[in-house]
């Protein structure tokens, strides 16, 4: 037990002496004992405060040296902003592509409905024998035209549908990017919790070592979709680049 603590032999002696003085009605002596007792307590307080200040200082120094927080502020947060901007771009592109393809398909579908309604009408008249030879000839050639039109437009129709389907790939790409930003937000949260805990008695930053390990990804690990402005360096920009690289490897 700390020798400057009130709960010590020294403190007990002061207390006994104080009781004695009060019993004897010795006010002067009693006040002196109380002052001594108070000094004892203050010296303990200052010592604790000093220790706390030293701990805080040490931790602050350690914390500044830990590049994690600095990295986050300088690199990771701006990176995250870029990544989220890229998510907006990707979702916008997907939405635009989907809407354009739907518009093309709707226009084609309207043409189709109009043409078939007309043919249907004529066909009904033909079935009811309400059509002369000339009209039948004209319907025949209309049918020929319709089938030609159908042959010509079918690929356009199916490619529009295929485009709509492929555009949904944005969910995978943006999901991967957002997943990485979520990881960063968790890292920042842990860093802030560590900062808050530093003011408490236990001044360790939990999970710091673990996070460092995580950040030190081996290069070959998956890093998700390349984000323009964030991922620089050895990134391929298109399928052609991939094909060139593979063929240079003898593929």
């Amino acid at each position, binding site marked *: 037990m700390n020798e400057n603590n009130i709960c010590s032999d020294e403190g007990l002696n002061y207390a006994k002496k104080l009781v004695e003085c009060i019993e004897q009605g010795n006010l002067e002596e009693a006040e002196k004992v109380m002052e001594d007792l108070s000094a004892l307590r203050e010296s303990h307080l200052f010592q604790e405060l000093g220790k706390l200040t030293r701990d805080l200082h040490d931790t602050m120094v350690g914390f500044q040296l830990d590049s994690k927080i600095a990295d986050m502020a300088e690199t990771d947060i701006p990176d995250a902003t870029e990544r989220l901007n890229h998510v907006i771009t990707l979702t916008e592109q997907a939405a635009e592509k989907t809407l354009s393809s739907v518009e093309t398909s709707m226009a084609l579908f309207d043409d189709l409905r109009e043409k078939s309604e007309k043919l249907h009408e004529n066909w009904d008249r033909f079935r009811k024998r309400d059509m002369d030879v000339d009209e039948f000839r004209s319907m025949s050639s209309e049918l020929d035209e319709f089938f030609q039109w159908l042959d010509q437009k079918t690929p356009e129709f199916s490619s529009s549908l295929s485009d709509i389907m492929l555009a949904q790939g944005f969910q995978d790409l943006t999901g991967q990017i957002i997943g990485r930003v979520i990881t960063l937000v968790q890292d920042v949260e842990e860093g802030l919790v560590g900062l808050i805990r530093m003011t408490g008695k236990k001044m360790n930053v939990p999970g710091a070592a673990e996070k460092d390990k995580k950040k030190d990804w081996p290069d070959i690990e998956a890093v998700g979709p*390349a984000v323009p402005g964030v991922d620089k360096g*050895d990134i391929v920009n298109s399928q052609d680049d991939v094909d060139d690289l593979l063929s240079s490897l003898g593929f």
Partner: protein
Amino acid sequence: MDKNMKILIVDDFSTMRRIIKNLLRDLGFSNTDEADDGNTALPKLQSGNFDFLVTDWNMPGMQGIDLLKAVRADPKLASLPVLLVTAEAKKEQIVEAAQAGVNGYVVKPFTAATLKEKIDKIFERIEAG
């Protein structure tokens, strides 16, 4: 190329699995099965008589590159054609995949034509022996 061949599609995003499945069906391949990462894919491959593997790279659990390595290390699966369809676009990753024995590499986002071209190429090469 046997249009009836059994194909395993591996991706952690179900939307991407559906896209690839639909594209393959458009190309005439409708005998497909799905898995959401390497850990679920490998047992399927080991017991399922698959003819072709289409896999993503970045997945929780076992990643696509590790699945590829596991396939090449398994004597029963070693010759299975593998196509990586991934957003991973670092050159060293592509080199790593090539060294691990991948048969084709498609970067996301991709087109239906690219997927068809790569599949055709893989099986042309295999048929040519």
